[in-house]
């Protein structure tokens, strides 16, 4: 090779010690990574374990099918239970559904705008930035926002489930947008072109080809977003309030959700048992209820995750290979 410098390659030959050193480093890093892994699992499993062990004590059908009205202290109710979380489950479902109905259509259409209509435009970049920023909005700020908004628009002292939905939807929106955006991005451009080349309008291409192809990913993204907000406490305390009875009206009256219930029961800590009470009176029933509700919450989140995966699989782009 003309003009090339002459290289003495023996100089670059790996020395024995160098090889050994690289090997050692390789093994050490492998070890370190495995250790990091195990260390991290300890607290995570401890969380799960504590919740399960403490939670199963009170988790039964009665607990799931009654609310807390008429529950006095640690005494058993007429149905033989110690109150339950039926109202909180209903509240959680309705408020989350409300948040879902607000954030999913907006979120998906926003990602459609970002990916399909204005990829790379200045405005789109600004919105992309704002979505990023929005994903960092602390949940308590979302709560304060919904609280302020309803105070100003509806009137002071407004508490209702929908107010909670508004707060949660603010938290869900960026997650939905970002995951949908990712999913739309990975829809191959080939498919769009194939559709356009068949003389299909842009709207139908997007709805019938692009969104359909991205659907499994979008659905699992949405479900993960739900799983994230279903455990919110602080914003709901200041928006949806707290009530011991079942309220099915999302737009009027306070509503309890599972995390708020957990927190409220934890706050009660203990109850007093009157001297006359039978041995069925349990003084630390609030803590037991808190753990049981926490366990239910985890199970709900778990089920949501599983559904997400299942949906992703069912709707998945079928392939034989």
């Amino acid at each position: 090779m003309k003009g090339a410098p002459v290289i003495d390659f023996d100089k670059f030959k790996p020395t024995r010690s160098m090889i050994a050193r690289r090997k050692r480093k390789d093994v050490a890093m492998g070890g370190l990574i495995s250790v990091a892994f195990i260390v991290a699992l300890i607290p995570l499993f401890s969380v799960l374990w504590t919740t399960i062990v403490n939670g199963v004590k009170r988790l039964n059908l009665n607990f799931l099918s009654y609310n807390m009205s008429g529950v006095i202290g640690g005494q058993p109710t007429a149905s033989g239970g110690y109150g339950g979380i039926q109202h909180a489950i209903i509240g959680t479902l309705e408020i989350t559904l409300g948040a879902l109905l607000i954030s999913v259509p907006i979120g998906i259409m926003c990602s459609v705008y970002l990916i399909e209509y204005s990829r790379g435009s200045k405005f789109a970049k600004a919105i992309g930035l704002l979505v990023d920023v929005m994903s960092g909005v602390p949940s308590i700020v979302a709560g304060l926002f919904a609280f302020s908004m309803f105070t100003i628009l509806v009137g002071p002292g407004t508490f209702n489930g929908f107010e909670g939905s508004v707060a949660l939807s603010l938290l869900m929106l960026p997650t939905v947008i970002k995951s949908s955006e990712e999913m739309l991005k990975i829809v191959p451009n080939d498919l769009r072109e194939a559709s356009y080349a068949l003389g299909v309008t842009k709207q139908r291409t997007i709805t019938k080809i692009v969104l359909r192809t991205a659907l499994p990913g979008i659905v699992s993204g949405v479900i993960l977003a739900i799983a994230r907000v279903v455990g919110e406490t602080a914003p709901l305390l200041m928006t949806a309030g707290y009530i011991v009875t079942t309220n099915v009206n999302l737009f009027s009256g306070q509503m309890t959700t599972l995390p708020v219930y957990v927190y409220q029961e934890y706050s009660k800590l203990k109850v007093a048992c009157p001297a006359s009470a039978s041995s069925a009176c349990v003084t630390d029933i609030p803590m037991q209820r808190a753990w049981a509700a926490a366990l239910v919450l985890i199970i709900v989140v778990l089920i949501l995750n599983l559904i997400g995966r299942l949906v992703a699989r069912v709707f998945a782009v079928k392939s034989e290979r």
Partner: protein
Amino acid sequence: AALGACGNNEPASSGSSAASKSTTSAEKISGEFQGAGASSQQAAVEAWIASYQSQNPDAKISYNPSGSGAGVSTFLTGATAWAGSDASLSDDEVSQSKSVCADGTAFDVPVYISPIAIVFNLKGISGKDKHLNLDGETIAKIFDGKITKWNDDAIKQQNPKVDLPDTAITVVHRSDKSGTTKNFLSYVKDVAPDAWTYDLGENWPNEVGQGAKGTDGVINTVSQADGTIGYADASKAGDLGTVAVKVGDKYVSYSAEAAAKVVDASPLDDSAKGDNRVVVKLDHTTTADGAYPVVLVSYDIVCPAYKDANTAKFVKSWLTYVVSEDGQKVAADNAGSAPMSDTLRAKVTKSIEAIKTK
């Protein structure tokens, strides 16, 4: 079991020996009513609601234990029928209430009187129904970080029979704004003005020890380490040791009766501006025999007239029940509170009578 109507539990049969006589004459109340406020009252209010609804099955009552401040603010927006509060109304709040009450200004009446226990956790010494004897000055010094060891002479002298260890004292106080704090501190300030020089308020004033959110936080924190001491609503004291407080020359440990005694021995606060107000000015320095002076008095705040007559009817009948002998007993049973005396009840009842239902 089939799902109860919307999962409601029928009121428990035990515990509430249905308050038959106090409300027999009153007509049945129906409708939905909301209250909000002090969390200290929560256990009592839950019991009251259960009993009250057993007599008025068509009334649906809910109480959000959102905190005294939030309760009063919400009440002042007109969104709730009444508020529970650990503090009596401020002058400002009284005048603000003009805009929500149909007529006149809101007033407060005591409904819930509860001893505050000074709880501690000390290996080998604390335990259920175990006490340490302390006078006000020692308590003040401990909570001000002046006494830092459990075997300090001041403590030893008052507890000659106890073998006190050389453990450091960790003070645990409320980190949130709290009526409990204010009542505890006003006791300390009244009995030991030289040892406790801070201004009185609902926030903890010094930087000693650890702060914890809520009564539950204090109890949890105290339980979690050796050498801790704190104060909390007595019904939550559980297995922790509690302090017997020096009154006169005896040491008195907390009990509902002992708490009731100090309230009886205390005058009403004449400086409270506004009609119908019943504000107790606790006399912490009382030497009355067997009185326990560390007490929390919690109020219900209501209007003398409501825009909605049904609400007015409800509030009147609700308060009547709450302060009735039965109501006070239900609270005492389920929340460990001290039933109010007949003298006080008479004053309160007079105020309740002022509520216009027509």
